[in-house]
C-alpha cells in the first residue's frame, strides 16, 4: 500500500515537473518574445520617457539666456541641500540694483531626483533631463553650475 502511494507520488511529481518544463521549453524554442534590452549596445535607439528624472538642468536659449531669477525657492524646497543659489546684484539701466543669480550650484551626488525643486520653481527655470549615465572618475565633476558662464536672465521673466 505504502509503496503504491509512493510510486503514485513520484509519478505525479514528474508529471507536474514536465508541465512546467513544457512552458520553459516553449519559450526556449520561440524567440519572438524577447524582452531583454541589449544595453549598452542599444544606446542609439534607447528611448526614455520625457518625464524621466535623471538630472536637474537649466535650459538656455540661443542668446545664452535662462529664466532663473535667483529667488532660492528651489534651494528651500530641496530636502537634502543639493542646490545652493549664489546671488549677486545687477545694476539695471535705470541705475537700480536688482537681485540676480550668480551661480546655481548643483551637487548631483546628493540629488535624489525627487522633482521637488522643479515643482517649486516659480519661473520654470529648471527641469529634469533624461540623462542617466552619471559615473565619473572624480567626484568633483559631479558638482555642477547650472547657469552657463556669461548667461543672463531672459527679458520679461520676473
Amino acid at each position, binding site marked *: 500500500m505504502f509503496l503504491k502511494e509512493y510510486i503514485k507520488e513520484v509519478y505525479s511529481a514528474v508529471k507536474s515537473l514536465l*508541465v*512546467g518544463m513544457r512552458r520553459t521549453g516553449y519559450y526556449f524554442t520561440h524567440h519572438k518574445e524577447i524582452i531583454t534590452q541589449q544595453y549598452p549596445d542599444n544606446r542609439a535607439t534607447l528611448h526614455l520617457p520625457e*518625464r524621466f528624472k535623471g538630472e536637474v538642468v537649466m535650459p538656455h536659449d540661443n542668446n545664452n539666456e535662462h529664466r532663473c531669477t535667483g529667488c532660492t525657492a528651489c534651494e528651500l524646497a530641496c*530636502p537634502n541641500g543639493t542646490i545652493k543659489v549664489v546671488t549677486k546684484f545687477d545694476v539695471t539701466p535705470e541705475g537700480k540694483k536688482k537681485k540676480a543669480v550668480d551661480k546655481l550650484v548643483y551637487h548631483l551626488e546628493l540629488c535624489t531626483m525627487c522633482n521637488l525643486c522643479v*515643482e517649486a520653481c516659480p519661473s520654470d527655470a529648471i527641469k529634469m533631463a533624461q540623462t542617466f549615465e552619471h559615473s565619473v572618475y572624480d567626484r568633483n565633476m559631479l558638482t555642477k553650475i547650472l547657469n552657463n558662464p556669461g548667461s543672463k536672465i531672459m527679458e520679461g521673466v520676473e
Partner: protein
Amino acid sequence: MVETIGNTAEGNMIINVGPQHPATHGVLHLVITINGETIQKVEPHLGYIHRSIEKMCESLTYRQFIYVTSRMDYLSAHINNHACALCVEKGLQIEVPTRAQYIRVIMDELTRIASHELWWGAMAMDLGAFTPFFHAFRERESINDIMEETCGARLTMNYMVPGGVMQDIHPDFQRKVKAFIQQFKSKFSEYNEMVTGNIIFQNRMKQVGVLSAEDAISYGCSGPAARGSGVSCDIRKIYPYEIYNTLEFEEVLETGGDSFARYMVRLNEMHQSIKIIEQLIDNIPEGDFQAKTKAVLKLPKGEFYQRVETARGELGVYIVSEGGTTPYRIKFRSPGFSNLSVLDHIARGSKLGDLVAMMGTLDLVIPDIDR
C-alpha cells in the same frame, strides 16, 4: 555562506545566516540555534541598514519628508508615500480631488501587483526554480514602464504630494494599463503551470511554518502573512481610505496558515488588484489632479494617525505636530517588523531547509523592518 561560531553544551550549534546571504534578500542577520537539522531558536539581529528615517523626517518639512519614505519598503514606495500624504491631508483637512484619488488608487494597486510579482519570482528562486524569476520580471517590467512614463521613476517615484499627485497622468497611461491587464491575464496561467501546480514545490510549502490565527493576532501580523491564517485584516476593507469603500473587491483569505496558504493569498490578491484597476481605469473623472495648497504647510498642533494597506500589511504613519513647518515626531508602524517577529515562533522545531520557505512567504523587506 553559513559559518559555525560555536557549540553549546547540549549538542546545539549556533550558526549565522546573513547579514550577507542570498536568501535573506537584504542585510538581515539571523542567529540560529540548531540541533542536527532541527531549528531550536531563530534570533533576528537588525541594525545593518538603519538610516534613522524617523529622525531624519523631523528636520524635513511636510512636503519633503514624503520622498524619504520611499526608501522604507521600496517595493511599496507609492503606498508609503500615499500614507504620508493622507496623514498630512488629515491634519490640514485638505479635500483631495476625485481625479487624484482615482489615480492614487490605480497607482497603489499597480504597485501591489509589481511587489507581489517580484515576491513570486524571488520566492520560487529561493526554493530552487530560477526561470520563474524572469517570467515575473517580464510582467513587472510592464508596470515599471508605466510608472516611468507617468511618474518619471521606476522604483522611488515620489509621485504623491499633499493634496493630490505631482503631475497629471501621461496621455498614454490608460492604454498602457489596459495592455498590461491583458498581458497579465494571458500570462497568469503560466505561473500556476510552472510553480503552483508543481508537486515538489507544494511539498516544500504545505504544512511548513504553520501560523495559527491566534498567534498571528498576538504577534501583530498583518497583510498576506495574517490573511493566510484566516485573520481578516485588510485595511482597505476595515478602515477604507480614498475611494476604496466604493470599489468592489474581495479580501483574500486562506485558512491553512502554512506557507502555501500565504502563497495563495498573494497570488489571488493580484487578481483582486486587477479587478480594482479595471473598475477605475475607464472612469477616471476630469478635474484637477492636485488640490490648491499653501506653499508652506503647517500642521495644527496635535497628533495624527493614518493607516494604509501596503503589499506587506498595515503601515501606520503617526505624526505629532507642534504647529510648526516640520513634525515634532514621526513614527512608522511598519508591517515587516511584526511579520519578522513571528519567524522564531513558526520556525521552531522545523528543519533548516524550510526556513527559506518561511522567510520567503513572510515576504520580508529589510529596509522596511529596519528603518
